[in-house]
C-alpha cells in the first residue's frame, strides 16, 4: 500500500505537527475564547430570562392573591355596611311610626278636649242667656198689668223656651 512507503513519513510527521500547532495557536488565541464566551453568554442570558420570567410569575401571583384578599375584605365590609344601614333604616322607620302614632293620639286628645270645652261653654252661655231672657220677660210682665192668664201663658212660654234650649 502507498501509505506504508516510509520515505514520506518524515515530511508528513513534520508538516502534521507544524500544521496542527499553527491551527492550535490560532484557534486557542482567536476562536475558542470568543465562541465559548458567546455560548456561555447566551446560556447565561437564557437562564437569566427564565429566572426573570419565574420571578415575574411569582410576583404576579402574589399581587393577584393580594388583590383577591383586598377584594374579599372590601366585599365583606360592604356587606357589614349594608346590614348596618338596613338596621338603621329599620330603626328610624319604627321610631317615626311611633312618633307619628303618639302625635296623632295627642292631636286627637287635644281636639276632643277642645270640643268638650266648647260644648260646656256653649251650654253655660245658653243658660246665661236663658236666665237673662227670663229676667227680661219677667221685667216686661211686671211693667204691664198682667192677667192671670197672661202669667200662666208667660210662664209656659219661658219653660218651653228653657227646655228647648237645654235640649239643643
Amino acid at each position, binding site marked *: *500500500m*502507498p*501509505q*506504508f*512507503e516510509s*520515505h*514520506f*513519513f*518524515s*515530511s*508528513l*510527521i*513534520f*508538516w*502534521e*505537527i507544524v*500544521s*496542527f500547532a*499553527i*491551527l*492550535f495557536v*490560532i*484557534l*486557542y488565541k*482567536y*476562536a*475558542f*475564547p*470568543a*465562541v*465559548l*464566551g*458567546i*455560548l456561555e*453568554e*447566551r446560556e447565561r*442570558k437564557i437562564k437569566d430570562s427564565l429566572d426573570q420570567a419565574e420571578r415575574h410569575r411569582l410576583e404576579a401571583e402574589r399581587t393577584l392573591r393580594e388583590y383577591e384578599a383586598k377584594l374579599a375584605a372590601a366585599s365583606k365590609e360592604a356587606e357589614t355596611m349594608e346590614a348596618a344601614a338596613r338596621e338603621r333604616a329599620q330603626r328610624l322607620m319604627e321610631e317615626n311610626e311611633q312618633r307619628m302614632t303618639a302625635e296623632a293620639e295627642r292631636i286627637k286628645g287635644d281636639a276632643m278636649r277642645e270640643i268638650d270645652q266648647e260644648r260646656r261653654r256653649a251650654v253655660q252661655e245658653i243658660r246665661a242667656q236663658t236666665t237673662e231672657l227670663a229676667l227680661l220677660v219677667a221685667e216686661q210682665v211686671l211693667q204691664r198689668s198682667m192677667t192671670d192668664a197672661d202669667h200662666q201663658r208667660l210662664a209656659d212660654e219661658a219653660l218651653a223656651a228653657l227646655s228647648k234650649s237645654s235640649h239643643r
Partner: protein
Amino acid sequence: MEENPLHPFELHNFIPINIGGLDVSINKAVLTMWVVVALVAALMVVAGSARRLVPGKLQSLAEMLVDFIRGIVLDTMGEGGMRFFPLVATLFLFILFCNLVGLIPGSYTVTSQIIVTAVFAFSVYGLSLMIGFALHGAKFLGILVPPGTPAWLLPLMIPIELISQLARPISLAVRLFANMTAGHVILGVLFGLTVSGGLLIGWLPFVFTIAMNGLELGIAFIQAYIFTVLTCVYLGDAFHLHGHDEHAH
C-alpha cells in the same frame, strides 16, 4: 490507472525540501493539511469574531461544532476536563476537516495515511500517560489494576490490562486510517467498475458510488467523533484514575 484502487493514496513530492538531513518535502498531503488549517482557522475565527447573540449561519455552524465538542469533553471528563478543550477541539476539527476535504474528488485524504493518524494517536496516548504520572505519580500504575480485583487475580489482570493499554494508541490510529482508506478504496473500485462497465452496466456501480459518498460523509464525521471521544476517555482516565470523581464517564 483506474484499475488500481490504491492509486489515490500515492504521494509525489512537488517541492523537495531538506532541513538538516530531514526530508520535509511538500506533497499533496501536506498541501491538503494547509488547506484544512486555513479552512478551519477561517471558519472559527470569522465565526468567533461575529459574537452575535442571535447567530448567523456561519456563527451557528462554529458554535454547533464547539458546543458539540464541549459536550463530549464535559460528558467524559467533567468540568475539570475543560482545560483540555482547546486541544481536543483542535484535534476534532483538524481530523473532521481532513476527512471531509478528502471526500472532494481530486483532493487528498490526509487521515488515510497511517503515519498521520499514528502521530495523533500516540501523541494523545503519550499525553494521557504524562498527565497520569504528573497528577498521580507512581499510583498511576494502578490503572493496570481495575478496582475490586482480588489479589490472586493480579498476575492475570496486569498483563491483560497492559496489553489493553498498549492497544489503545494502535487501535486509535488504525481505526481512523482503515476507515478512511477503506471508504476511498471502495469508491475507487466502484468508479473503476463504472468506467470499465460502459453505459450498459456501468450505471449500476455509479449509483452505488453516490450512495457510498453519502455514507462516507457520515463516516468522516463519525470517525472524527470516535477519535475525539476516545481521546477524551483516555485523558479522563489519566485525569481521574478509576473515576475518583463521579463526573468521570
